[in-house]
């Protein structure tokens, strides 16, 4: 039983990571309707900026804050220069191609600017562990959970309770209509990207801090699990993304412990999970049913 709880907490540790990235993915999808494949690499670039700042002597929290600001601006710039020209075009696939190109470019630039060696990112949370339910839980993990909850609250509040959030949602639902109401759709889209980039920067920096070490491959496996979590959650629910991140993480850890034949391919479990869930509930566990007009 102890072992089980131990593994559940291992799973939560990873699940929080997946949930954080899934959050950024869901946010950008809800505000702009785009599935951003480059989300992971954007977060990676910001993470390296945070890291670089800490090596120059900046305290961790400050470094992450600066990096988030840079990401905010960069996210808006990317939307304006790279995404906007193809977004309104005829094919949504064009936007996918641009995000893929961005993925490749960012990963490569990271290696160019920051090198290929693995690095260590300091964490803003205290080290050490606490005992919960006879399992050892890292303080780091608890810190991440707290940050994630705060992010969810903030985003929920922003989207549901502020004018800005209303505008963001309006533009995402129907850009034409929104324009007719006087909302500057372009600005809102930029805001959506900027916000997601900043959230991604936070997620990446904290994840790298939680890990023993990180390199340019940090986000690649995480992205797959985060996409799985977001899909499982329905891509429209912020809380759904986080909860499903936890589910995916826990399922992964338990598979490693208890299902030996799947050693090395335990990724089959979360993926299989999505496939099963989506077949039964096509809008994900927490998604909203979309009504389509003919």
């Amino acid at each position, binding site marked *: 039983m102890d072992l089980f709880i131990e593994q559940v907490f291992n799973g939560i540790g990873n699940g929080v990571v997946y949930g954080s990235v899934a959050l950024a993915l869901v946010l950008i999808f809800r505000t702009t309707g785009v599935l951003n494949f480059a989300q992971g690499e954007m977060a990676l670039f910001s993470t390296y900026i945070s890291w670089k700042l800490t090596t120059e002597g900046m305290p961790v929290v400050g470094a992450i804050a600066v990096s988030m600001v840079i990401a905010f601006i960069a996210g808006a710039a990317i939307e304006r220069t790279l995404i906007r020209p193809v977004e309104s075009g005829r094919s949504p*696939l064009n936007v996918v191609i641009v995000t893929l190109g961005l993925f490749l470019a960012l990963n490569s630039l990271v290696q160019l600017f920051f090198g290929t060696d693995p690095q260590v990112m300091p964490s803003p949370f205290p080290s050490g562990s606490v005992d919960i339910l006879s399992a050892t839980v890292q303080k780091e993990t608890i810190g991440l959970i707290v940050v994630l909850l705060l992010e969810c609250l903030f985003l929920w509040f922003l989207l549901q309770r502020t004018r800005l959030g209303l505008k963001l949602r309006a533009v995402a639902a129907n850009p034409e209509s929104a324009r007719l109401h006087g909302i500057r759709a372009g600005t809102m889209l930029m805001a959506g990207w900027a916000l997601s980039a900043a959230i991604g920067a936070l997620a990446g920096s904290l994840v790298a801090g939680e890990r023993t070490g990180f390199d340019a491959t940090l986000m690649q496996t995480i992205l797959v699990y985060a996409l799985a979590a977001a899909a499982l959650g329905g891509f429209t629910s912020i809380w759904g993304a986080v909860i499903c991140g936890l589910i995916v993480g826990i399922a992964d850890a338990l598979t490693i412990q208890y299902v030996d034949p799947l050693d090395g*391919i335990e*990724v089959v479990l979360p993926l299989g999970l999505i*496939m099963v869930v989506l077949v039964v509930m096509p809008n994900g566990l927490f998604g909203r049913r979309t009504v389509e007009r003919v």
Partner: protein
Amino acid sequence: MTTEQTGAAVGPAIGGAPVDTAAPLASGARPGLFPPVPRQVTVAKVIIGVVLSAAALYAPFYFEPTINRVLSQAIYIAIAAMGLNLLTGFTGQVSIGHGAFYGVGAFTSAILMIDYGWTFEVTILASVVINAVLGFLIGVPALRVRGLYLALVTLGLAVLFPRVAQKFVDGTGGVALLRPPRSDFSSLIDGLADDQWAYFLSLAIMVVLFILAWNLVRGRVGRAMIAVRDQEIAATTVGVNLAGTKVATFAISAAYAGVAGSLSVMIDRLADGTNPILYFQRSIEFLVAMTIGGAATMLGPAVGALVLVLLRRNTEDLIEGKEILAPALYGAALIAIVFVLPEGLVGGVNRLLARLGRRSSAKGRPPTRPIPDDSQ
């Protein structure tokens, strides 16, 4: 029978590039999907077609084996992209998982050759069958999953496949790499070197599959696919078998990807299970080839595949000492292409030709066909 220009009705409602407005041999006014085309455009297309075909046939005799191999790679990517085009371009179901079917095809051929001694050409057929069945099996539950979710579920397949291959494929030394001996692929025609034979075999298969796809698209099935893509619910009200169309297209596109995989074993001479991201990369390549070539055009995937392969090759060692930038240059090139030609290369060429056709028609000569509306 309507007389309005249906080009507008089939416009870019829910994404997808406009339908190819003229195949090289379009003849006669066909109402509906293929509005009539000025003779000049048809002539131009025929000439282009002849020149390209001649180049394609002469190429392997002119180039060295290594370049032939590169061209052959373009061909198998083109085949997979063609299949994906049927599913994604015409039927609107986005899949980022066709690399998995490609992988199944590759390992099918490799295993049948190494463990059971089959002849290579016959393994291609086995690959078709197995992948069609697999495509069907995945297509059925995929009916429940729409749009974005379908893309992610298929992504899961592409991520899963190499892990499974790594675990269960046992090559020499325990490495999950299968290499049928070179002699298994030797040329069946005297006078043709092995690499030339590989090229021609692939080319022949591509042409056959192209004709098959073309026939499919021109017929009732094609119209059903486009209807499904643009307005699913409306399509069902006019009697389109939604499930049947989607599943069948899934199966067919999977089979195409499977053929590509089999051919890759001949051209690259290996089936690789050691690389966790390879089949995801392949999935993306098929999608990219289709898009930059021109989704929902017939020649788009082939053109896109060629451009993709050449781009990849040329960005590799472009900047001496900064090889690490190769993926960045490649990514930048992709973005540039999509910016400049949002309908893809073939789409852009079509548009250009149509515009030229209109202009020359407007020069006072009586048009030989009714002039299509500006629906591009």
